[in-house]
């Protein structure tokens, strides 16, 4: 077990190093001068020369990479071209809305997705199952920003039940915070609910056809005990895998949803960075989210042993 955790961690570090090499080479092989890209459009030749000196662009590539990687490991992710402030500081200011939106989306989509999936598998072929199949196909195909505008149109513009856009920090009270996050969360959750429900249904159906389920039924287990005690536990591994993998998908959704609802989070920071050609911000978000993705999937791998004692490494 200890050896497994160690090996898994080493491979996560190797993957992270590959991500680093890749992101590093992205800038070096881009058309144009990397120093000019980092300096921005309004930079003077002196500024560009200074950045070239600082990045060590006249040194060999491996030396440049070590230099670059070490400064990131030391917490220096560079400065924004547009505001001149450290990227990490800008990111930390934008973290609360994004984390709030992501956590609410995870909670909503896992609870809804897993319950829909269980219901559909329990009455496979029935009307709930059919409705779910249609919802899963459509929900997975409609882009989150289109869902977002539909929700805005019907629940904010036409009925005025909810705010059209914007964000309130949780420090201003849980009520306003939650009210502003209802529509973004609902929009962002649609594809996840569809995806998780589909996987849950498939893996539940697989388990429900096992011999031990028939045995449980023969011994008089209630439907509740059968579904939740016998089946869900065994169907948990694929569901957990999907929840881990969907993180990458969550990020694109967050960028789009924050744009629709004008939520001042990390996603808006990235979009503003595209428009002002602020590459240091994009590079840092790329590295940090990749790191988070590697960590989440590491955690998911290790969590397998907790939910399924049969998996031993």
């Amino acid at each position, binding site marked *: 077990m200890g050896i497994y955790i160690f090996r898994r961690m080493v491979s996560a570090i*190797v993957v992270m190093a590959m991500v680093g090499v890749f992101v590093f080479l992205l800038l070096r092989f881009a058309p144009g001068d990397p120093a000019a890209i980092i300096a921005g459009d309004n930079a003077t030749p002196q500024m560009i020369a200074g950045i070239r000196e600082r990045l060590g662009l006249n040194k060999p590539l491996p030396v440049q990479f070590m230099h670059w990687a070490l400064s990131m490991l030391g917490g220096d992710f560079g400065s924004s071209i547009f505001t001149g402030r450290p990227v990490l500081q800008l990111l930390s200011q934008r973290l609360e809305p994004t984390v709030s939106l992501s956590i609410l989306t995870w909670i909503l989509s896992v609870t809804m997705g897993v319950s829909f999936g269980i219901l559909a598998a329990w009455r496979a072929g029935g009307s709930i199952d059919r409705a779910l199949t249609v919802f899963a*196909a459509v929900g997975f195909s409609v882009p989150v*920003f289109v869902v977002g505008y539909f929700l805005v149109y019907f629940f904010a513009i036409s009925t005025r039940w909810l705010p059209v856009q914007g964000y309130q920090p949780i420090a201003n009270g849980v009520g306003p915070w939650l009210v502003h996050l209802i529509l973004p969360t609902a929009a962002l959750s649609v594809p996840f609910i569809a995806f998780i429900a589909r996987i849950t249904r498939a893996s539940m159906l697989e388990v429900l056809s096992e011999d031990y389920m028939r045995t449980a039924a023969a011994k008089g287990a209630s439907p509740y005990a059968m579904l939740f005690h016998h089946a869900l536990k065994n169907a948990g591994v694929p569901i957990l895998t999907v929840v881990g993998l969907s993180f990458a998908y969550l990020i694109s959704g967050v960028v789009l949803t924050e744009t629709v609802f004008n939520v001042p989070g990390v996603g808006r920071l990235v979009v503003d960075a595209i428009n002002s050609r602020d590459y240091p911000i994009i590079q840092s978000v790329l590295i940090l989210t990749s790191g988070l*993705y590697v960590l989440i999937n590491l955690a998911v791998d290790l969590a397998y042993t907790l939910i399924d004692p049969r998996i031993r490494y």
Partner: protein
Amino acid sequence: MSQTSAEIKVVSQGRVRTRGLVRIVRRHPLIVTGGGLLVILIIAALAAPLYAGDPMALDPFKRLQSPSPDMWFGSDNLGQDVFARTMYGARISLLVGLTAAVAAALGGLLIGVIAGYVGSFDRIVMRVLDGLMSIPTFLLAIALISLTGPGIVILIAAIVIPELPSVTRLVRSVVLSVRERPYVEAALCGGARLPKVLWRHILPTAIPPLMVQSANVCAGAILTEAGLSFLGAGMPPEIPSWGNMISSSRLYLPIAPVMLFAPGVFLAITVLAVNLLGDGLRDLFDPRSKRRR
């Protein structure tokens, strides 16, 4: 007498034909629905100049009009015909989706086959792909485009590159399993050259899962292009792509919702058609999956 028998024959033939068609629809409802929708969309996109107006024509006197028999989806803030723009927008989405699917399939096939046969290449490439797979695809596309500026070629490259790892892994796994099969060994012992074995034995095994995967890539590419254009990092803004249309109409949502919902609904239908086709193909090639879903 002979006339009646001829009639009977015609009638029965007709019945057989419809039965055949009904059977195909019954057996493969997803392929028929998805494929049918996709064919209609492709024809509508290609034939747009025949029935839709000029998507670029400006008319300052007809701004933000409601839908009318003249302009089915009304007009946008510049007085452009939203119906014409939506129909021309299908061209961009389908072009990006199909090109990305073909490019990812060919790229994955090439790298996957080499990786499956050349051990040293395999070890390096798989580590590189592991790294590439850990970078969220949408952000990677944003980074690529922000380095080079918008344009359709870089856009397709930015969509295809993040998709390569999954396609390559698929092809590689097929190669690794098929190349150990007795019939492949027999072919090689019988003097068949490696390219011939690849063409005759490995490619046909890889094609079915590759088609399913390509449908996924296609749907993803259409969504990514729309998303990137929506953020202002995709197609140049004057091009009538669905993402651009949604982006430029968001300010007018309260007064001209059709301007936003027309491209939005078409976008959703197109992606749905591709996804249905992909699901149908998977059921066709892997009947086990049908039972499960």
